[in-house]
């Protein structure tokens, strides 16, 4: 007899959690997408693919943007659509060159608002030194979309012979975060849910291109880079631990977190390690180069809170473990879906 407690029938429809970058997303990718469209390039599951075309090494990436609300403190869907794709290219140490942009617009959407979105998309592209080389517009019936969705695809030139990759972490490496954690996720949550937390917190959405290219001179000593998006720091670390077959240990008290982000997380029962960013990355480097990397990142305004937050271990391969503020240990697991605020 099927026991009452067993969850069944969860596989026949898409849930929001399938898009949250956690375990459900992973299942969808592994069970639905990779078996049909996987190949030696796609199967790497890096932020951007690395393609050899003629003599050139090209980084290639695509992303769709469905953020709600469309306008949030510190940006809007237009700037985000540039930053997200540029940052994916930057995680292969590529110099971003061109973007394609597709707009899917809902009938009835105000052209004035669309103009504001395009204006900030244009501004972000200029700052990231990329050109929009192809574009498309579609309009769907009222009610069939959420105002505007944007897809961007980007290409860039990989300028190093040693592009970092998600499977290259080695025991003994140190883990560095480019700056503080979670501003984007909390800014969006406050704007979306109308939470009046009396904070002027802005999203961290930004182009990481220039900051990432500062690390090019590390050559083969730079092993992994990952930008922190959905699923936050925890997803990025778990993906690296899994792909590189290594353990990861971080120190909770060394992870930089803005006081307003910490405060909001305390109130809502959220763990900042799982909150989304759109302008932060982690990199994993050979231990004797770590101090140099932090100093270098700190020279850039986007890297001012840069810090070493942990190390790669031989122990517990595939697992991310955190050393807590009081000296205990805990696992930092990948979430199965979105993080849900707790009752009490």
């Amino acid at each position, binding site marked *: *007899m099927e*026991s*009452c*407690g*067993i*969850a*069944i*029938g*969860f596989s026949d*429809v*898409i*849930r*929001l*959690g399938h898009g949250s970058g956690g*375990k459900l997303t992973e299942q969808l990718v592994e069970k639905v997408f990779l078996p049909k469209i996987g190949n030696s390039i796609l199967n790497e599951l890096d932020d951007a693919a690395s393609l050899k075309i003629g003599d050139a090494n090209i980084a290639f990436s695509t992303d769709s943007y469905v953020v709600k609300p469309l306008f949030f403190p510190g940006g809007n869907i237009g700037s985000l659509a540039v930053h997200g794709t540029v940052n994916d290219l930057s995680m292969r140490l590529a110099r971003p060159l061109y973007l394609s942009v597709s707009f899917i617009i809902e009938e009835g959407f105000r052209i004035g608002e669309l103009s504001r979105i395009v204006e900030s998309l244009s501004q972000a592209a200029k700052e990231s030194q990329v050109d929009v080389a192809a574009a498309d517009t579609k309009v769907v019936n009222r009610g069939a979309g959420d105002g505007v969705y944007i897809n961007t695809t980007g290409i860039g030139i990989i300028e190093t012979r040693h592009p970092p990759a998600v499977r290259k972490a080695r025991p003994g490496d140190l883990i560095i975060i480019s700056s503080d954690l979670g501003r984007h996720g909390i800014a969006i949550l406050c704007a979306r*849910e109308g*939470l009046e937390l009396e904070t002027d917190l802005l999203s961290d959405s930004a182009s990481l291109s220039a900051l990432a290219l500062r690390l090019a001179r590390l050559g083969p000593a730079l092993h992994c880079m990952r930008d922190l998006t959905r699923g936050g720091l925890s997803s990025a670390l*778990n993906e690296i*631990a*899994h792909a590189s077959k290594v353990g990861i240990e971080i120190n909770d*008290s060394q992870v930089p977190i803005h*006081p307003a982000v*910490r*405060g909001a997380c*305390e109130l*809502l029962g959220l763990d900042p390690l799982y909150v989304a960013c759109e302008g932060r990355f982690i990199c994993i480097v050979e231990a004797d180069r770590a101090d140099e990397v932090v100093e270098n990142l700190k020279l850039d305004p986007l890297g001012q809170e840069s810090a070493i937050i942990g190390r790669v271990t031989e122990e*517990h*391969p*595939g*697992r*991310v*473990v955190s050393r*807590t*503020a*009081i*000296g*205990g*240990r*805990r*696992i930092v*697991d*990948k979430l*199965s*879906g979105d993080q*849900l*605020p*707790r*009752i*009490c």
Partner: protein
Amino acid sequence: MKYVDEYRDLELAGNLANELRQLCSKRWTIMEVCGGQTHTILQYGIEDLLPETINLVHGPGCPVCVTPVALIDKAIAIALDPSVIFCSFGDMLRVPGSAIDLLEAKARGADVRIVYSPLDALNIAQRNNDKKIVFLAVGFETTAPANAMAIHQAKKLGISNFFVLSTQVTVPPVCAAILQAPNNQVEALIGPGHVCTITGLKEYKFLAEHYKIPIVVAGFEPLDILQAILACARQLESQRFDVINQYSRVVESEGNRFARNLLEEVFDLCDREWRGLGWIPKSGLKLSSDYRSFDAEREFASIATSECQESPECISGQILRGNKKPTDCAAFGITCTPGRPLGATMVSSEGTCANYYKFKRFDLGSANA
């Protein structure tokens, strides 16, 4: 961060652990009642600091976990009614019923919304006159006053499309049920700080006297828990059975009189089934006769309650009583995971098994284990 970092201090935590190590002459079994405290213990790895003389067992204080499957099924059936907007706190949405959970109901077209306060649900009711708004009221005495306030407001404002499905429970009856069981091993209780903010300490003084057991009402930060363990151990070593208020920065001995009066007005005590523990007399809160028209059970009486059989493998009843730990269970992490929980304690982020699964599986090798 002020008022937070002070309670997570590495050196002070070490000092408290050392004091415990020197104090204990034998092994003591201490239960933290509240799921929030269980979460802190696992999230901060507090057990890594404790001497072997302290055996922490984890109590029944996760209201999400102990909600019977039949009630979750009822909630889902109500949510799937096209005339309903179903409102809930976030962590109820992923609790599996016998077939699906509320998130799946949402994916299948139900209008399910996360709210941060029951008053948000009331606002939704005011803006959607053509819909029935049902709020799933889960929780202990801590969350009950806000639920009571929403119902009270609904009556005052004459709102007739707002309903509450109450699965609310109270803490002292379940403590008594655990302490009076013949095979009880619990020797001291860490009491639920936020619950006592509302109720005060009176009922806990009765429990301490009646069952000859020390109770330390505590907060939710790592140092709160460590201090409470130390205060329990000191009493056990000298065989004293008092109620100590460790959480005096929040809890007053009388509790919150206004909130208690509101609870008495809006709710009546009722017998309630606890998942994993069975029926416990006078352990639930249902809407009182004056507020009966807001009771979702009455409005949706035609939706039958399903008959549910718990998994024979699951030992959550033993875990909730403090007799066993998740690692004693053959199904733990294998056939029973947060995605497919077999029983109460794997269900929510405050459940003991879910906490062990999330924070304590160091040796299972792969992240996908």
